[in-house]
């Protein structure tokens, strides 16, 4: 078997990045920053220049911002990267032995280094071709066009995306009903107590939040629940989670299991890396394989994948402390770490009921996450250190209690 360019110690000359959103762009930019001057192809299925997604459910949806504010880079900065830019063209297949990416326009792009950053798409429901989803700028503009006072909006799913959109619609005067299958929204992500506190904000703002309600299908005039009840609405937003875009990798021989499976270096195969929402990798800090749909992770992982691709001899495990934030009404939620699957939550500052607090999350014997709501944003940064250093739960929480008395 012939050695790859990287194994032979030769620098790659043809790098292809598939996915032109935050992760793909960060990878492309980092390659150039690190001195890569070969051909750099950036493939994106959307026709638009790379744009930022978090505002889609926040200030773009509310009308505070127009689409031009979402550009990830100024046109001049994008030009300066010297890209072979293939926008509006999805990748359809990957041939690993042949080192070729096939595109929807019939072309085949050869590579000696590849970054897969194809992201996720919304999970669909039967009948939801008549419903809204919220992933692309076009999705957000279509929903924004319908949000007006008195409009009855049904939001399927009370995750962060659904919650943010519900908050925007409510503040714009819509009658908003949120349907959530779990007993407590966000419980799997932030725990029951914190999930309950966050969901209270919706009820206080007049959102009709119905938990334990699974939606079976979208109908012409609303949705039908698993119990057969019909709930009427003028518009429906399906915000029921996402699925990684990995279908185009079928037959490539790469391992796909809820994301493209990578090692700790974001490598899925020699010279093939992944970054962003689509990537599942072994996180050294949490001892488990994770796939993270956070804006900050997309950029950080794009950078890490690009560096490891360029310099495999100096490669580094990708061990970030994940970060996310969410704006719901006047409460800003920020979190660091890996909160999913946690075994215990302790409030170490503030007061849950006042919706001003810092909560720590425990997995095993360590602090693995921290979440703050309604606190000065820099308050959480000192707690981030506990996550980054795998501080023991006992010492951290005991010290806090001691300091408080």
């Amino acid at each position: 078997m012939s050695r790859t360019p990287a194994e032979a110690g030769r620098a790659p000359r043809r790098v292809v990045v598939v996915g032109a959103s935050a992760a793909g762009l960060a990878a492309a930019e980092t390659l150039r920053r690190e001195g890569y001057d070969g051909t750099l192809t950036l493939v994106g299925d959307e026709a638009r220049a790379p744009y930022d997604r978090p505002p889609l459910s926040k200030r773009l949806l509310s009308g505070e911002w127009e689409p031009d504010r979402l550009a990830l880079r100024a046109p001049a900065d994008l030009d300066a990267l010297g890209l072979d830019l293939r926008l509006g063209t999805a990748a359809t297949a990957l041939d690993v032995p042949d080192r070729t990416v096939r595109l929807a326009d019939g072309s085949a792009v050869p590579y000696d280094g590849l970054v897969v950053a194809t992201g996720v798409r919304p999970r669909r429901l039967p009948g939801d071709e008549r419903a809204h989803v919220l992933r692309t700028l076009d999705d957000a503009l279509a929903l924004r066009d319908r949000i007006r006072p008195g409009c009855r909006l049904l939001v399927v799913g009370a995750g962060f995306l659904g919650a943010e959109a519900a908050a925007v619609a409510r503040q714009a005067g819509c009658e908003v009903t949120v349907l959530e299958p779990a007993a407590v929204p966000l419980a799997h992500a932030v725990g029951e107590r914190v999930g309950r506190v966050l969901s209270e904000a919706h009820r206080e703002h007049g959102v009709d939040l119905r938990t334990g309600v699974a939606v079976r299908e979208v109908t012409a005039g609303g949705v039908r629940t698993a119990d057969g009840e019909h709930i009427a609405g003028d518009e429906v937003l399906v915000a029921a989670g996402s699925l990684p875009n990995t279908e185009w990798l079928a037959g490539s021989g790469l391992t796909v299991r809820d994301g493209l499976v990578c090692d700790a270096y974001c490598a899925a195969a020699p010279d093939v890396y992944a970054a962003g929402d689509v990537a599942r990798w072994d996180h050294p800090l949490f001892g488990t394989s994770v796939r993270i749909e956070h804006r900050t992770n997309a950029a950080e992982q794009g950078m890490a994948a690009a560096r490891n691709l360029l310099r495999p001899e100096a490669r580094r495990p990708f061990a970030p402390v994940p970060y996310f934030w969410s704006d719901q009404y006047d409460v800003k939620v920020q979190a660091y770490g890996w909160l999913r699957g946690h075994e215990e939550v302790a409030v170490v500052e503030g007061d849950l009921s006042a919706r001003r607090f810092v909560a720590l999350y425990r997995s095993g014997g360590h602090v693995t996450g921290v979440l703050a709501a309604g606190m000065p944003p820099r308050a959480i940064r000192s707690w981030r250190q506990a996550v980054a250093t795998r501080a023991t739960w006992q010492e951290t929480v005991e010290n806090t209690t001691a300091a408080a008395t």
Partner: protein
Amino acid sequence: MSMRVELDEPKCVASGQCVMAAPEVFDQRDEDGIAILLEERPGEELLDGVRDAVAVCPAVAIRLVEQ
């Protein structure tokens, strides 16, 4: 030629990622966490950290421009 940092304050979401990437160049306001630019024209030795900050800023609020 020198490099100048631009901070689009209304875009900032107070994540503090820039402060961790380049603490000599950025800080956060106490009350709301919005980023503060400490050094509009950082020296060469700080530029790598600034480039990291540009890349990880979740709000795309930082730009590094050549003068």
